């Protein structure tokens, strides 16, 4: 497995560095600027009505009267640029094997080596977990850097931050597990990314519609965003065990089915 991990490291080190630095810069900017931008949030809601459901969908709760300065920090963790960066890394990484390898034709070389498909799949998963952890940690350090200059009442507690970060990691893993599953069934990386992007978009739309449309609310449990609610974590001050457990279950089930599919399928590059 050492050789496989070395190969993964050589392939992903630069993209992971770029994603990490990008996330750190964005987190720094958002942490520093969001209090000013959202300071007058109620006036913004009155002037631009669709902003509220959008923020509600992102936060997973109504930001109405309870939208304190501390709660504003929750928006940082659901900001579209933050989620886009995290998911872009997830989609790019988790379609590497087998979709991108088959697409490029290099799977012939890889599978010509004495390595089982399960070992290959597991080493990719290890690489993904580590790279996601690095990206989120570096991104978090950007937040910490900017947060040090904020008023103490604007900073969420360490436990709440740990809960949010764990929740974000869990949602990344769940999206990653599903992406591994789609990749395992695909011979084209672009197709796998496209399908997964459509799923994420549908997931967000479902969460959005669920704010004001009851039929959508009834099936909102199907949206992966339903299990990522930083505002609730800050509000309750407790670790989001139920959400993390659901996301972990999604990760394990989708990743395992993906592994079985990859093990059993025929691989053809011609």
């Amino acid at each position, binding site marked *: 497995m*050492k*050789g*496989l991990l*070395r*190969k993964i490291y*050589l*392939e992903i080190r630069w993209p992971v560095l770029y994603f990490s630095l990008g996330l750190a810069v964005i987190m720094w900017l958002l942490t520093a600027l969001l209090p000013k931008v959202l300071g007058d949030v109620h006036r913004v809601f009155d002037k631009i009505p669709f902003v509220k459901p959008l923020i509600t969908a992102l936060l997973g709760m109504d930001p109405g009267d309870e939208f304190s300065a501390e709660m504003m920090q929750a928006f940082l963790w659901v900001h579209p640029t933050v989620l886009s960066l995290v998911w872009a890394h997830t989609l790019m990484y988790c379609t590497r094997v087998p979709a991108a390898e088959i697409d*490029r*034709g*290099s*799977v*012939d*070389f890889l*599978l*010509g*080596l*004495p*390595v*089982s498909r399960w*070992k290959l799949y597991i080493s990719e998963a290890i690489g993904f977990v580590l790279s996601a952890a690095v990206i989120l940690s570096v991104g978090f350090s950007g937040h910490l850097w900017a947060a040090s200059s904020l008023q103490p009442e604007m900073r969420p507690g360490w436990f709440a931050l740990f809960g949010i970060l764990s929740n974000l990691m869990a949602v990344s893993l769940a999206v990653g597990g599903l992406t591994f599953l789609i990749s395992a069934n695909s011979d084209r990386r672009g197709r796998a990314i496209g399908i997964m992007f459509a799923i994420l978009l549908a997931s967000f739309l479902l969460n959005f519609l669920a704010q004001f449309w009851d039929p959508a609310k009834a099936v909102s449990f199907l949206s992966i965003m339903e299990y990522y609610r930083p505002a609730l974590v800050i509000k309750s001050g407790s670790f989001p065990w139920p959400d993390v457990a659901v996301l972990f279950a999604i990760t394990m089930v989708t990743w395992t089915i993906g592994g079985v599919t990859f093990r*059993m*399928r*025929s*691989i*053809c*590059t*011609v």
Partner: protein
Amino acid sequence: MLAIETRELTKGYGSRRGVDQVSLSVGAGEIFGFLGPNGAGKSTTIRLLLGFLKASSGNAQIFGRDCWNDTATIKHDVGYVAGDVRLYPWLTARRAFQIVGEIRGQDVQPHGLELAERFQLEPDLPVRKMSRGNRQKVALVLALAHRPRLIILDEPTSGLDPLMQDTLADCLRELAGAGHTVFFSSHTLNEVEALCDRVAVVKGGRIVADETLAAMKSRAPRAVSITFADESIAATLQAPEFATLLRRSGKDVQLQLSGSAADLTRWAAALPITDLSIGQPSLETLFREFYDTSPAVLEQKP
């Protein structure tokens, strides 16, 4: 123990046929040529052997192990070069020796560098800067660096210049001499003829011939040129049953001999000929017959 054994190996791609009831056996130390036109099923057979594809029916074994279930174990003893080599753009030969060595659990760098020198390959040049031929060399060197007991090569000379083709042929002969087995596919007759002990011909996904090169040569047609004393005899000549008349030109007649030379000389002794020459067995003609797409030929069994 046989290096490769397949029994009625079949693989279909939906409505398309990949390979159909392919039965092969390749002994240790053999250089085995797997010949066939494009799309005949050569690569599919190799992919089944390497466990990339799951057979629809039948089975394949390498060194007595199942090619699908034990594929990772088998590959400790196998070196493989794909027909269309695609490698990672960032990979250099030296880096590849390190990664492959760690995966194989053996230091392949010393022998790998020797081979790189033999194939005139720069070990620190990344694949993205390499020509197709150099990429082919990287794949060959990586396939041979761990001294595998079985080398499976899918059209390995495509992209190599004639000198490198000779180097590869020398390498393969040395390996076979040391007891290693070589299984290589090709659609080029010359390299098969120059290297192989035994040849199987695949067409339309089925094996249409599987025999030693010597046996194949013995039944390969030969070109015969006869010059008669009189043009009128050449003009009215009827070819015997063991030969086919190809053309006449003045006093000269050209035949394709499918029988023995003894039959020919007996037949020719009764005729007023001034000259007779018999060419070498033409494997090319024989292979062209194999490659013929007529249904009658497709029905041939080994």
